[in-house]
């Protein structure tokens, strides 16, 4: 299908013209939750039961990515076909999670464009393009993973480390605020999360020697409310010698302690980015999120100690940003096998078999970790979803081979769950790499990896989709894919999971067996998380097909919505 609505765009007069277009278009509204142009807190709270909208990056505050409508199901998915295709103006890495509010869809692209689309027809309502400043520092492509919606606003976080509030009806900026200094390596690619009038943001920059954080901003004004630093002033921890699975990490604790005594705590440039959205637990009024790698990635000699709270799941209080508890998966990581895939809140069996509030995280290690929400303690970890070899061999100058490679396992890709079945669905990469270490001083906001990780060209790469029983840690089913997978996955009440591959395949699998029930070839890498929504009683599944910079899959610029007639 041709580019639908951008033909009407005239450069320079975009906002004004589009405001008019928005009024002229007929956007047919969903019905179940009423005629709600305004996204209330109540609507956001009840998103897990909302079969019309898709209001959160990962579906709901628990981030289950489980969509409750079953109109598209195992019985009719073979008839799924494109309802419309919207072509954006940006043909580059596409990681957006489409958000749908009452028949209006919001998607983003690389370089921080935002589009409001008619979710039924794909027609453009407005288009906002962030005017980026001269300094945008990002390690892994000019990505943006989407917007947050609340009230009458759409919130965008940008590559040059700003938070922007747009009028949901017109796309005009209401306010903009600086999140951090991009010259020091801070940037934003994540979608914000909005809870109770607070816009929550983490930061990129773990590859640049930042000091990571989660910040809360006032949703109405953009005023900073609190900051939680992900690297505390005392980051040494307990000098753990094993990872969460009990394997020896070959640390030289004596040498580290000597360096710590000599040089002091490295917290100021220790990294600890937060790549993805937090989960919000209303019962405890707490946030749960994961913190990424320490800086520099591969050279531990300049950052002695456990490097708290890198490679950890952390829980903090929503109102104050104060620390509650944490669990570190890997202390003193020197492989960049950090924690990036967003947390998911489910009820799961503890060691005694009792159901407890739990939090899931899929690691780059290839394990899904199940922790107790109450005190962050580990309940179990799953079988490894990808091959693990030579763990934890230390990086060397000439390169040491270890599996998984530095992309994982599970990268930033959100997992999905089916709470009815107790299953978590994850997409994985298998990319054999060598890990090289090089010592260098903090370079003032430049890429600071402390070495390099390199794909071994002669070795086969592949991926898989894996279903894990999080009550036992056992793999229920696994489907191998021809290429490593980055993007995300969606589960639905129709007994399906949807996910995409770098070769352009978008597919529906039976959520109980992994059987492939439907495939579509999008022409560019499908490396974005799918969403689903319903307009006028008809369910759609939507996904971005624009490729990915990190794994260099074929670029494109398509947002594709599918339905069944």
């Amino acid at each position, binding site marked *: 299908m041709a580019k639908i609505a951008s033909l009407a765009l005239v450069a320079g007069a975009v906002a004004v013209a589009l405001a008019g277009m928005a009024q002229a278009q007929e956007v047919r509204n969903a019905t179940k939750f009423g005629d709600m142009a305004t996204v209330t807190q109540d609507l956001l709270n009840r998103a897990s039961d909302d079969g019309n909208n898709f209001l959160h990056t990962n579906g709901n505050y628990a981030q289950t990515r489980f969509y409750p409508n079953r109109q598209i199901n195992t019985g009719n998915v073979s008839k799924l076909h494109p309802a419309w295709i919207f072509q954006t103006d940006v043909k*580059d890495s596409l990681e957006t999670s489409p958000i749908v509010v009452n028949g209006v869809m919001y998607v983003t692209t690389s*370089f921080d464009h935002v589009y409001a689309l008619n979710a039924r027809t794909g027609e453009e309502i407005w288009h906002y393009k962030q005017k*980026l400043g*001269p*300094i*945008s*520092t990002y*390690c*892994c*492509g*000019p990505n943006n993973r989407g917007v947050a919606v609340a009230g009458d606003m759409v919130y965008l976080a940008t*590559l040059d480390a700003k938070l922007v509030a747009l009028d949901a009806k017109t796309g005009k900026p209401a306010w903009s605020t600086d999140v951090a200094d991009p*010259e020091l390596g801070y940037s934003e690619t994540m979608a914000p999360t909005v809870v109770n009038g607070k816009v929550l943001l983490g930061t990129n920059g773990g*590859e640049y020697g930042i000091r990571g954080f989660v910040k809360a901003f006032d949703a109405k004004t953009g005023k900073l409310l609190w900051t939680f630093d992900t690297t505390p002033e005392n980051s040494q921890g307990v000098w753990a010698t094993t990872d969460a699975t009990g394997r020896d990490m070959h640390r030289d604790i004596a040498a580290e302690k000597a360096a710590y005594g000599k040089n002091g705590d490295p917290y100021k440039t220790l990294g600890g980015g937060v790549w993805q959205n937090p989960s919000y637990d209303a019962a405890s009024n707490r946030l749960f999120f994961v913190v990424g790698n320490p800086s*520099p990635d591969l050279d531990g000699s300049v950052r002695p100690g456990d490097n708290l709270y890198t490679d950890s799941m952390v829980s903090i209080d929503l109102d104050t940003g104060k620390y509650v508890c944490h669990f570190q998966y890997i202390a003193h990581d020197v492989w960049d096998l950090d924690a990036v895939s967003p947390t998911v809140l489910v009820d799961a069996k503890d060691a005694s078999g009792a159901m407890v509030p739990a939090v899931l995280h899929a690691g780059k290690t290839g394990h899904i970790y199940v922790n107790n929400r109450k005190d962050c303690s580990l309940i179990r970890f799953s079988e490894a979803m990808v091959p693990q070899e030579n763990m934890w061999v230390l990086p060397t*100058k000439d*390169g040491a081979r270890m599996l998984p490679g530095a992309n994982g396992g599970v990268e930033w890709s959100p997992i999905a769950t089916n709470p009815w079945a107790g299953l978590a669905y994850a997409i994985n990469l298998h990319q054999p790499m060598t890990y*090289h270490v*090089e010592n*260098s*001083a903090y*370079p*003032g906001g*430049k*890429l*600071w*990896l*402390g*070495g*390099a990780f*390199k*794909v*071994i*060209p002669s070795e086969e790469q592949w991926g898989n989709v894996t279903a894990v029983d999080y009550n036992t840690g056992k793999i229920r089913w696994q489907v191998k894919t021809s290429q490593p997978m980055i993007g995300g996955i969606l589960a639905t009440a129709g007994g399906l999971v949807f996910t995409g591959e770098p070769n352009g395949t978008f597919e529906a699998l039976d959520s109980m067996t992994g059987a492939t029930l439907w495939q579509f070839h999008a022409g560019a890498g499908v490396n974005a998380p799918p969403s689903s929504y319903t307009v006028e009683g008809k369910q759609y599944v939507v996904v971005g097909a624009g*490729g990915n*910079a*990190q794994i*260099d899959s074929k*670029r494109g610029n398509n947002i594709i919505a599918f339905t069944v007639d």
Partner: protein
Amino acid sequence: MTMRASLLACGAISLAAALLLQSGPAALAGDVEEAAAICSACHGENGVPVDKSIPVLWGQNEGYIYLQLRDFKLGNRKNVNMTEIAAGLDKPSMKQLAAYFSAKPWPNLGQPSAPHDLAVSAETTAGSAGCRGCHQENWEGDSVTPRVSGQGTQYLRETMVQFRSGERANNPWMAALLKTYTDGDIDAMARYLAGK
């Protein structure tokens, strides 16, 4: 003027420019065209550098130009001429110059495309190192990451060698990455990128 004569002139002007700029950054901030003319003595009046060891500046990414000027001033990147010049620049002046040159069109140096076997070799090297993750699919970079497509072959080759040896030390990631490259890898990458 021959290339050698141009280079000598470029060096002489750089020293004169350094003296001029050290009289105060306000002089530069007042007239970016005038200051840019000083740069053009080496980087070329039409965007084509006067010597093959000097990089193309026209059309280069704004953030990258700014950070290099900053690093020359801080001593993190070393070059006799540029260190002198950057010493007289303040932050707003650096940003002005960066914006000025990034807005210029990238010049065509007329360099040949790499032969097929060399291109395949370069692609394998680039894929292994994940170069496009920063330099983008079209090798034009963005913001603080430089455009490398169409850059001068000799400059590209020398820069990679300098990263590998540690002579250029203002990007440890590039230094670490280049340490895993052979001479053949570097030559293939330089010729491949120059011909893009």
